[in-house]
């Protein structure tokens, strides 16, 4: 027997008043074929109901969603960037002199600036081993980076020239093994 929509809405409103999870999906499921009628009623209720302050836990969870998955995983294991870079350099048997470049690439990968599908299997093997998580989880797409404009800090009168603004333009470079590992390009 299908529960009346008014009853379902009343239950949801009482849960809201008590500060409990609303379980909107469950409520809609109980409405059966009339879920499409109930959904706008719930929306109307939520639009008018007093706004509930998020709990510290829920706020932390939502904020954590802004962080790229690699970053989240690394911090969760109390690993520093250098810890991961050390493992990549060692397991990929790279020259220690390549370390700064590996570090830069790893940070770009972690921040979502590199396409994870272009990164070599050997690099991912090192990363997944030290992180203890699967590549699928670690390379899952994250939310967009903050779209805020650059901010500059200066002591004196600033004339923002084109060179400064356009610094993001890629610099000509000679590919090497590290480029190949992170960009998928063949080493010369």
């Amino acid at each position, binding site marked *: 027997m299908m529960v009346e929509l008014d009853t379902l809405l009343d239950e949801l409103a009482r849960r809201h008043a008590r500060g409990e999870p609303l379980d909107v999906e469950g409520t809609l499921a109980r409405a059966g074929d009339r879920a499409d009628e109930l959904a706008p009623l719930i929306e109307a209720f939520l639009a008018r109901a007093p706004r509930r302050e998020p709990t510290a836990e829920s706020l932390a969870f939502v904020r954590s969603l802004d962080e790229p998955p690699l970053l989240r995983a690394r911090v969760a294991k109390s690993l520093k960037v250098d810890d991961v870079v050390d493992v990549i350099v060692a397991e990929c048997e790279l020259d220690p002199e390549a370390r700064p470049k590996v*570090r830069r690439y790893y940070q770009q990968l972690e921040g*979502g600036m590199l396409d994870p599908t272009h990164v070599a299997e050997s690099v991912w093997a090192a990363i997944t081993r030290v992180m203890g998580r699967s590549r699928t989880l670690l390379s899952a797409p994250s939310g967009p980076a903050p779209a805020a*404009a*650059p901010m500059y800090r200066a*002591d*004196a009168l600033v004339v923002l020239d084109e060179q400064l603004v356009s610094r993001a333009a890629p610099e000509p470079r000679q590919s090497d093994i590290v480029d190949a590992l992170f960009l998928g390009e063949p080493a010369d």
Partner: protein
Amino acid sequence: MRSSSASPPTSPPDVRPARAEADSAGLDTSSAADYVPSDLTSVPTRYTEPRAHELRERYLATYGGDEIPVPVESIAEDLLGLRIEEDDLGECSGMLIPSERLILVNAAEAMSGETPTRRHRFTIAHELGHWVCHAKSMADAPTYCRSHDLAQDADRTLEREANVFGAELLMPEEAIRTAWRGKPDVGELAAYFAVSALAASWRLYSFDLAERPA
């Protein structure tokens, strides 16, 4: 291109004269050291930035280590996943590019002894203030962080917030008070916190522990 992570310097900060031409243009381009915490004079003495404390405590809970000097580079890179690079920024001390999770510090400021390390530390702390407090809600227009923005009468809330954030991140009140009780010497305090002497002086002043810096 990475910024230095050298040990905290102990030499006094470099102080340069203000530029008259910039003054005539309405810009306060006071000395290199002045830029650090001078805006704190415009802030009530009990103004605090809890997000700076939360960030520092989160770092310590995650990675442990010494609280002082605050590992601001590691907070940026290891905890927040930001990159720090040095670059030729002309007159700019630093720059935050949120979409690249990138903090740029002026490479030229790393070329006159150890003092610039302290400058970089505060620049990074300042940009972290922008990242934590503003990065996700800023308008499209660039924000220029000039020394004028940091002056006492500056009407630049974002810059002031970033400065307060930087000061509170690098110089926690309790640690400042404890260190000052132990040895009330500005130079040693500044060296201990790896900030400029003037930064330390303004911080002390904000707690009513010392006279207003000249």
